[in-house]
């Protein structure tokens, strides 16, 4: 498609985003304001992630998009097509083959490599926003490293529910300085935030970009007597039998039958191709 500049955005916009990414990498976990553009998709559909991807992609890249772990949902398919059309990049559903991965709300099960980049779509980048609605105040709290309110919130979870009930967008401390929202990934994925790949976060509506360089210390907030726990549904995958992957629960009928399947479709497919079978695998194949 020659009607568009490479990767859709104009060069000046890409430079502005690129400068923000570099500052984000220099101050891990700090949210860099940027002049987010309108994209040809609604807010909440990954406009931030798309802008970061557009500024990051080169024609040599292989691009993968996942939405809640799945390569084949509407959001993932349309963003993948968007960059096939405007950037002419190769796309893939295989985590192994991708060099840039845009994700909504999951980190792939396969361990990411040094030469990979993962771009997160972020709805609300400010971890303190639901505790303090004023941007002027949350900005001051970050500058003063004043995160007591977040610990009070986690404490109230414990006093009300007996455990920290936050299950996704679980706050983390990055490089001992900034509390960061890892985007609404399940807390099962939090330990993977210390990875070999470069992690970039884009929030289009909220106009923020932030980043976590490889091998950066990322600690999920917790208490000594209530340590952080990465939880998942206590089942194996019903299709591939994996016991180590994050699962989605699928209601099968009105009688209350349900199945658990890997949320990472590529991981599940590659396991099934390798011959692994879950409880409902036969039935499903028939």
């Amino acid at each position: 498609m020659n009607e568009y500049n490479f990767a859709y955005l104009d060069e000046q916009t890409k430079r502005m985003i690129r400068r923000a990414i570099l500052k984000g990498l220099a101050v891990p976990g700090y949210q860099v304001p940027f002049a987010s553009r309108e994209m040809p998709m609604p807010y909440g559909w990954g406009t931030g992630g798309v802008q970061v991807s557009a500024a990051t992609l080169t024609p040599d890249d292989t691009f993968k998009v996942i939405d809640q772990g799945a390569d084949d949902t509407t959001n993932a398919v349309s963003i993948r097509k968007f960059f096939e059309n405007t950037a002419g990049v190769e796309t893939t559903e295989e985590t192994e083959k991708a060099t840039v991965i845009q994700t909504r709300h999951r980190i792939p099960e396969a361990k990411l490599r040094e030469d990979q980049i993962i771009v997160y779509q972020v709805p609300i980048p400010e971890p303190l926003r639901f505790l303090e609605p004023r941007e002027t105040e949350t900005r001051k709290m970050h500058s003063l490293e004043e995160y007591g309110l977040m610990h009070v919130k986690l404490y109230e979870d414990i006093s009300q529910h007996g455990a920290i009930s936050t299950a996704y967008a679980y706050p983390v401390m990055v490089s001992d300085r900034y509390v960061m929202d890892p985007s609404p990934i399940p807390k099962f994925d939090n330990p993977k935030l210390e990875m070999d790949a470069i992690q970039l976060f884009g929030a289009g509506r909220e106009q923020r970009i932030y980043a976590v360089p490889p091998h950066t210390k990322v600690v999920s907030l917790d208490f000594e007597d209530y340590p952080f726990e990465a939880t998942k549904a206590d089942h194996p995958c019903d299709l591939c039998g994996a016991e180590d992957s994050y699962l989605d629960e699928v209601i099968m009928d009105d009688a209350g039958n349900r199945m658990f399947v890997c949320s990472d479709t590529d991981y599940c497919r590659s396991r099934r191709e390798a011959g692994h079978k879950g409880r409902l695998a036969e039935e499903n194949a028939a």
Partner: protein
Amino acid sequence: MTAQSQFSGGFQNAPVQAAHAFRAAMTVMARPGEIRTLAGGEAPQPLSVAAGTLLLTLCDPDTKVHLAGAANTEAVREWLSFHTGAQLSAASEADFAVGTWSELGPLGAYRIGTSEYPDRSATLIVECDVLQQAGAQLRGPGIKDTAHLSLPDIPALQANAALYPLGCDFFFTCGDQVAALPRSTQISAEA
């Protein structure tokens, strides 16, 4: 020949070359101690290929650039202004500064950001005679265990890192090679 150097030396295919150049710049900023090739642009002497390419990739009318010492020539000013539209400024207002370490002068002259907006700090492009993975020992975000990089002035860069989360960020350029040092990196002299 002034006119020729002013109009030449830009990207031939800006979107693609800038994308490759940014990936190299991003990779080194995310992995302090790594050295990458950065080419595509050619600024007039005395700027290196890597420094010229960085300016083309990151600067535009929204950024203020400080040309330090020998980099501040008529030819460089005209080239920068033609290709990027960036405004020239004093060190104290610059978003980007280019020059050798001694020409760039004391780091106190540059913006280090504010506690609420640490991103509003200068990025210095330091021209070096040598660039190698030896010398100062680096630790911190982006580094698995430790890395090494030849740095021009360890005490000054340690003082900059001590300002974290404020401080300047650095690219080191030598020919078509580039490395970077964000403020988050802890530096110690090689034992």
